[in-house]
């Protein structure tokens, strides 16, 4: 920045303190995590091997937990997209004053405690909660629905808790789309739906991918929501890591589960990034 007058090639040194901090307290622990995951004995005797990985991967129940975690995250992310996209679209169509109000409403949940928001859902979805009382009063069902401690409940609450992460990047992308493109499409005879699917939606893909990455990674690791809404009978990967590490004190196995979980999440993120690159290449060539 001061480059024009006085090039200072050593400015990057300002990043060194944080780099040192990360080397010590971020990279080193993660390296240690990987190293301990190769310990074959629970007592960590120094015998290395792939025993813990084999133990996880050979048990169908463990694989089901991994699959459920990744699937619940995917469902919640899709729900976020379905409801978040129209909200982001609305934000770009209203006056500046209303836009500020809407963005305030979207941002508020991000800074409000996740514990608080999840607690609210327990009251709403419980046996005698608002949703069930309404359903019973309307005669839609004879018995209260089991929403708490069910996968449906977890998906709904995850979607609500993480939706801002989807909406904010979408607003940014939608605002950047030239409104003339939509007008041109409409002037050439395309209806509102066709214009949306042929013009707006493809152009907003970078925002969709960015939002999907943020929402998905937040949903699969949302320990508080998963455990409070899922209860003790629905087991997801974060809770499994916690139980193995703290309740059973089986560090090597917990480490292997953590590595498998992190690699799965990072693979999905990498796939999404690759998808956005290939689409961007096709669109903007």
């Amino acid at each position, binding site marked *: 920045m001061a480059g024009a007058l006085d090039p200072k090639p050593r400015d990057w040194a300002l990043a060194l303190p944080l780099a040192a901090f990360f080397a010590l307290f971020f990279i080193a622990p993660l390296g240690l995590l990987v190293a301990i995951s190769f310990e074959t004995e629970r007592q960590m005797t120094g015998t290395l091997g792939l025993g813990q990985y084999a133990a996880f991967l050979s048990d169908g129940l463990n694989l089901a937990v991994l699959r459920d975690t990744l699937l619940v995250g995917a469902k919640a992310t899709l729900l976020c997209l379905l409801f978040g996209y129209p909200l982001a679209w609305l934000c770009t169509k209203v006056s500046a004053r209303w836009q500020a109000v809407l963005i305030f409403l979207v941002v508020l949940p991000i800074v409000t405690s996740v514990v608080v928001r999840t607690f*609210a859902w327990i009251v709403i979805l419980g046996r005698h909660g608002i949703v069930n009382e309404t359903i019973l009063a309307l005669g839609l069902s004879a018995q209260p629905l089991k929403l708490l401690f069910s996968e449906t409940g977890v998906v709904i609450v995850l979607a609500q808790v993480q939706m801002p992460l989807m909406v904010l990047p979408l607003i940014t992308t939608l605002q950047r789309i030239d409104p003339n493109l939509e007008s041109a499409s409409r002037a050439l005879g395309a209806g509102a739906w066709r214009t949306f699917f042929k013009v707006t939606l493809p152009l907003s893909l970078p925002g969709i991918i960015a939002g999907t990455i943020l929402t998905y990674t937040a949903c*699969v690791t949302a320990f508080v929501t998963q455990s409070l809404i899922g209860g003790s009978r629905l087991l997801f990967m974060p809770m499994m890591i916690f139980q193995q590490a703290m309740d059973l004190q089986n560090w090597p196995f917990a480490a292997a589960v953590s590595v498998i979980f992190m690699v799965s999440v990072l693979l999905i993120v990498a796939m999404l990034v690759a998808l956005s690159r290939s689409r961007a290449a096709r669109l903007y060539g």
Partner: protein
Amino acid sequence: MLRDWQTLSFNAVFGLLSLISVIVLAGPTLVILILSFTGEEALHFPPASYSLRWYAALIDANELQAALWVSLKVAVISVSACVVLGVAAALGIARSEGTVARGLETLFLSPLILPALAFGFAALMLFSILGMRPSTLTLAIGHIVVCVPFVLRTTLASLAQLDPALLDASRSLGASRLHTFRTVTLPLISPGVASGAFIAFMASFDNVPVSLFLQDARTQVLPIYLWDIIQNQLDSRAASACGVIIIATVLMMVLMERVAGFSRFMK
């Protein structure tokens, strides 16, 4: 005719979906806020009567207050460190080009997408090998790692909007690099820094996955204490404690919006 119908149905569907989103986004917070003023023993919505009894009950909730102090202390320590480390790193990254700077940026932002619980567990193992017992310090170190991305991101965003001509002008008028930083750069990026610090503070105050591994009985943090009582006994004081958190959050957010325009840094 067909096109009118199309426009109408498109606006109806999108309008309805976004209306549901707005209600669903704001609803739960409102429900807890209303519920916190209940006059009843049990948490039932809508409350049959209203009172401040559960707020009054917070006054002698000693464990809850102890947890609040731990959380505030950890948040203040970690946010201070995040601001110093994060702003310096942002300046370094913004002023350099090339793969090293980009690589460092990716590294510093990666705690945002990496499962925080796995990091918390990894940090616990490192601290136990180093012989560090769980304490305010271990909590703060863990929180710095997961909160610094917020400060870094908002500071980088405001540095990107900084007009380099202003810095050149300051330097050519004879100001030293430090003086230029103090009188030109810092005032211009301070909304970004303040917004990042605010988000980092709330992220630390709310963190469960990292704190779970790095706290001990003496340093239980507020969100874990609340999580515990919500899961086990559904104490009505949980509602009034959440009410206090909601009111404080909204007030701070309005303040931050006024002084730093913080919601624009969230995009």
